[in-house]
């Protein structure tokens, strides 16, 4: 395959940045999207040019490190992570536009790399449970109905890649935050901090400068892990009931 890549290049956070076109030949349809970028970077390095910076880690779709807005969609045309996207999803001779996630809360560090530590701070604000140290508790000591366990697991599938923020017209982080709120609110272990968690995580989400939710459903449609917007409704319930009943004045 021969491709034209239109890639966002930006030296650092204060640089204005802009698109640069690259011609890339000899791309196999079996390559992953990131492998295709590796090939480009090897060519650039051989020519003594600065390679294109992009985030990646596990390359098996479970870590949430890869990103990229490819041809107008987060993680490209398939509902998967960029590392699990293959070049067979593209056509020979195609022009592929690659942009970083665009959100005030995700500043561009270099090229396609954005700082997503805003998500970490939302988790730090309340996305945890307090457990006693000591002996290992017996398995199944706490009864949890299968349906509830499944719902919690579905929410816990979120890998925090930020595709929801990238896809949302408001750059809202409600799908991410709601998945993390839901995962713990559904389980007995999450009850201790339940109200405070909802209040603090929502407050941190706002403080980071993410937008509000318009219920367009774009996040759910683009999420590589299929996180449902029913979680957003649950977060709203959690938050509204927390603010009227918690002890936090």
């Amino acid at each position, binding site marked *: 395959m021969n491709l034209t890549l239109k890639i966002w290049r930006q030296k650092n956070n204060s640089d204005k940045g802009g698109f640069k076109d690259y011609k890339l030949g000899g791309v196999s349809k079996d390559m992953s999207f990131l492998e295709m970028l590796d090939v480009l970077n090897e060519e650039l390095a051989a020519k003594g040019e600065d390679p294109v910076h992009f985030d990646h880690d596990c390359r098996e779709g479970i870590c949430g490190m890869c990103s990229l*807005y490819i041809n*107008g969609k987060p993680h490209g045309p398939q509902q998967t992570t960029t590392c699990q996207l293959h070049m067979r999803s593209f056509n020979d001779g195609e022009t592929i536009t690659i942009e970083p996630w*665009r959100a005030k809360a995700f500043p561009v560090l270099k090229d396609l790399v954005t700082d997503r530590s805003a998500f970490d701070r939302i988790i730090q604000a309340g996305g945890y449970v307090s457990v006693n140290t000591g002996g290992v508790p017996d398995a199944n000591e706490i009864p949890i109905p299968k349906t509830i366990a499944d719902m919690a697991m579905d929410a816990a599938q979120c890998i925090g890649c930020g595709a929801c923020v990238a896809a949302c017209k408001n750059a809202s982080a409600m799908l991410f935050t709601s998945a993390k709120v839901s995962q713990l609110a559904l389980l007995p272990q999450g009850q201790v901090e339940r109200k405070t968690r909802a209040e603090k995580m929502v407050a941190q989400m706002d403080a980071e400068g993410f937008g*509000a939710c318009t219920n367009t459903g774009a996040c759910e*449609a683009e999420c590589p892990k299929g996180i449902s917007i029913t979680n*957003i409704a649950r977060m709203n319930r959690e938050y*509204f009931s927390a603010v009227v009943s918690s002890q936090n*004045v």
Partner: protein
Amino acid sequence: MSWVSKTLSSTLGKKLLMALTGLFLILFLVIHLIGNLQLLFPDNGESFNLYADSMANNPLIRIVSIGNFAFILLHVLYSIMLSRHNNISRPIDYAVNKASTNSSWSSRNMGILGTIILIFLLVHLKGFYYEIKFGEMPTVDYAGVTYKNVFAIVAAAYSNVLYVAFYVVAMGFLGFHLSHGFASAFQTLGLNHVKYSPLIQKVGFGFSIIVPALFALIPIVMYIQSL
């Protein structure tokens, strides 16, 4: 900041106000429509004029009417605040964005749709509400009692084809606004349930077609009658 103002200034709190005022305005549309359909009764406007008179003199309706204006204002103000906040949240737009593949046009353009509806509302209030309340009104006698002839000014307005076209087009925009807003309000309130959400979406879809269509029917029929 008290916990109430802190909550209402959060993104979720602002959305809560949008949802609650939106749902109230949806309810208002139903009441308004039921009243207005009396314009089509073949009694030369008598039942509509009597209805308009009873509405104008009912203290409860007056209070609800003040609330209605307040909710419209709140709905508009909070939408401006949220839109501004949302625009700031993405300072640089994508060069290529295929938003139509993941969300409906209406859901992405609620602000534009709402602005058009607001313009319609201002014209509508000036043309009818203001005239009826403060303008010089023609009168009509029923059983010896004199009433404002609201029907006459509505009929006069709807004999103008441009005015009718404006109303019909505005109702189209209202339909698109409702097609997202109805179900969206329930989602914001956290009322999402595997048993009820499909029903809410179906009702919302039906509502967004039937209610604006019936509103648009009134000026169309009255225009035809005026010919």
